[in-house]
């Protein structure tokens, strides 16, 4: 019987776990202290409408007991902006397209005659510099990237949309809109990455070890997954989750005056995920760079359409989709507003 996990490895995983758990709790803990609760915010709103100034000193000026309470309504409610576009049919279609692309690519299987053997000189230089010496360490980084991606996606759906918006702020409408936007971002990113990876068919860096360091009969070598190097789904999803979280917090004011905190935490975690994929010998540098770019683009673009374009429209106007088809010289112009 041997001790199979070193202190370093244990600490490594523990830090990641604690980091994400703190990130999950951060909104509630940070804002439940010293900020008006849901009920207090409602009372204050009512007082203001009854003519009392919100700036008047409160009658009970005694120091309030500061106890940490994390219960529904511990944070002030948030409202989905009237000028912002709500998730609709077009979003459902785009989400469906993303899901279909991912499934169709998986069913069709990867291109078998894609680039094999090695990456570009730039890729090989980065690989040589970062790749751990032992296979055990590579496995550790692979597990780390899996865990980080799982935590990132869980945070977006469970931490932010469900716990933060719906439960802590008692704003289920905002929570639902956030979750639907998150789902659209996830499916679009997944569809793009899977379609590209299967179409390109680039062999993963570890592929060169099949028949040498790795058993040719192992699942690593026999499965189609071996040829899905370009581009990194882990990285693209991690960056898209970071971007969409950042966009939600900016647009909805979920982090008060510090909307940069979830952005910094999210993108840092995404960057660690990306480098973990290289250190796990699952991807080349160009794979993760492309994944990061695509993920960030999709992660900002979808919420930008909902929050940004809607904001340009007249305040109070109802959100609706419209598509105009105009004949022009040399063809047809399609103009859409959503």
């Amino acid at each position, binding site marked *: 019987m041997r001790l*199979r996990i070193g202190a370093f490895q244990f600490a490594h*995983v523990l830090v990641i*776990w604690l980091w994400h*758990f703190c990130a999950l709790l951060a909104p509630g803990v940070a804002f439940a202290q010293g900020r008006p609760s849901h009920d207090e915010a409602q009372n204050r709103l009512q007082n203001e409408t009854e003519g009392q100034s919100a700036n008047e000193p409160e009658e009970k000026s005694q120091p309030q007991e500061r106890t*940490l309470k994390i219960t529904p*309504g511990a944070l002030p409610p948030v409202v989905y902006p009237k000028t912002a576009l709500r998730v609709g049919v077009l979003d459902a279609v785009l989400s469906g397209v993303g899901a279909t692309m991912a499934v169709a690519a998986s069913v069709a299987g990867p291109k078998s005659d894609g680039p094999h053997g090695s990456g570009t000189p730039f890729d090989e230089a980065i690989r040589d510099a970062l790749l751990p010496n032992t296979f055990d360490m590579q496995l550790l980084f692979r597990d780390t990237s899996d865990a980080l991606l*799982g935590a990132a996606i869980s945070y977006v759906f469970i931490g932010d949309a469900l*716990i933060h918006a719906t439960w802590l702020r008692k704003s289920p409408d905002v929570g639902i809109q956030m979750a639907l936007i998150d789902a659209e971002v996830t499916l679009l990113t997944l569809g793009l990455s899977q379609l590209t990876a299967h179409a390109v068919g680039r062999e993963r860096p570890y592929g060169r070890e099949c028949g040498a360091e790795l058993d040719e009969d192992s699942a690593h070598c026999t499965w189609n997954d071996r040829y899905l190097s370009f581009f990194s789904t882990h990285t693209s999803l991690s960056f898209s989750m970071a971007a969409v979280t950042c966009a939600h917090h900016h647009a909805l004011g979920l982090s008060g005056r510090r909307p940069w905190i979830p952005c910094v935490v999210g993108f840092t975690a995404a960057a660690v995920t990306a480098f973990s994929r290289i250190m796990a010998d699952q991807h080349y540098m160009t794979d993760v760079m492309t994944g990061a770019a695509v993920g960030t683009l999709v992660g900002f673009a979808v919420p930008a359409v909902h929050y940004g374009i809607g904001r340009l429209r007249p305040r109070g106007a109802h959100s609706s989709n419209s598509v105009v088809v105009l004949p022009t010289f040399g063809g047809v112009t399609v103009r859409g507003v959503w």
Partner: protein
Amino acid sequence: MQHLRLRIVLAQALLVFALLGGSQRASAQGLETMPGAGFQSPLGSPPGARWSTGRDRWFLAGRIDAGFLFLRPRVSAGYGRPHFDWIGLDFVPTVAFSAAGGYAGGRMEGRFVEIRTGLLYQYSFNRSFLPEAPSYDLVDLDVLDGPRASYFLWDSELDLYFPIEPLRIRYQIQPVVADGIPEDHYLYFDNLRVISGRGLTLRQRAGIEFFWPGTTIGIAPEVELVWLDARSAVVFRAGGTVRWLLSDEFEVRTSFLPVFVSPDQLGRASSDVLEFALRWRWATE
């Protein structure tokens, strides 16, 4: 003299019964022991309000654990108060990227005890039986050498809860007996995350749960020991679980139990690490 001994035994039994009965408020699920219960949850009934109350009845109930990337449904049919105090049958289908199968068995859930026993069948898409070896790593696990692993497990579990407010001590024991494993071969048990063989595989877990003051967040440091009879080896894990009760219907769970002692080196395949799951419960009225 014999009567005296009998009386002492009876008195002790009554004392234990009274102690347990006296803390009936602390249900087996721990929902009533935690502070903060009673708030209005936007996600359903407040924790401790729905399942613990109501009448005994015939019911159909379900539980789904969803996360990235898994979906673990459980359908139950029985009599009593669902998810709280009942007796009946469990059905758990398994459909994953790596395996398919299912579990069916009986279950009794009470205030301080939860017991189940049943048969589990699993067909693995990407794993074979493993030729006997003193140690394995993740690559060994993924080598397809022979037919896909297909096996039956007789899987039982006993959970005991000792509510000592504000704590809740939990002890869990799960004996598993495998059938269908070829001679001189072992098997990766997905449900226990260990490589074991014919005969008994015994998992025990003990933990103490407490709720963070002012919250419905339950934290439980835990230790787990798995005895692999076929290999005469032990797997030891330690860490904890965290659950956040959002309502009686919704709960967020995560666990972190890395392996400290094991004959194998399987990475995350042998650990219980960082799975965030959203649990949803429902039942017919």
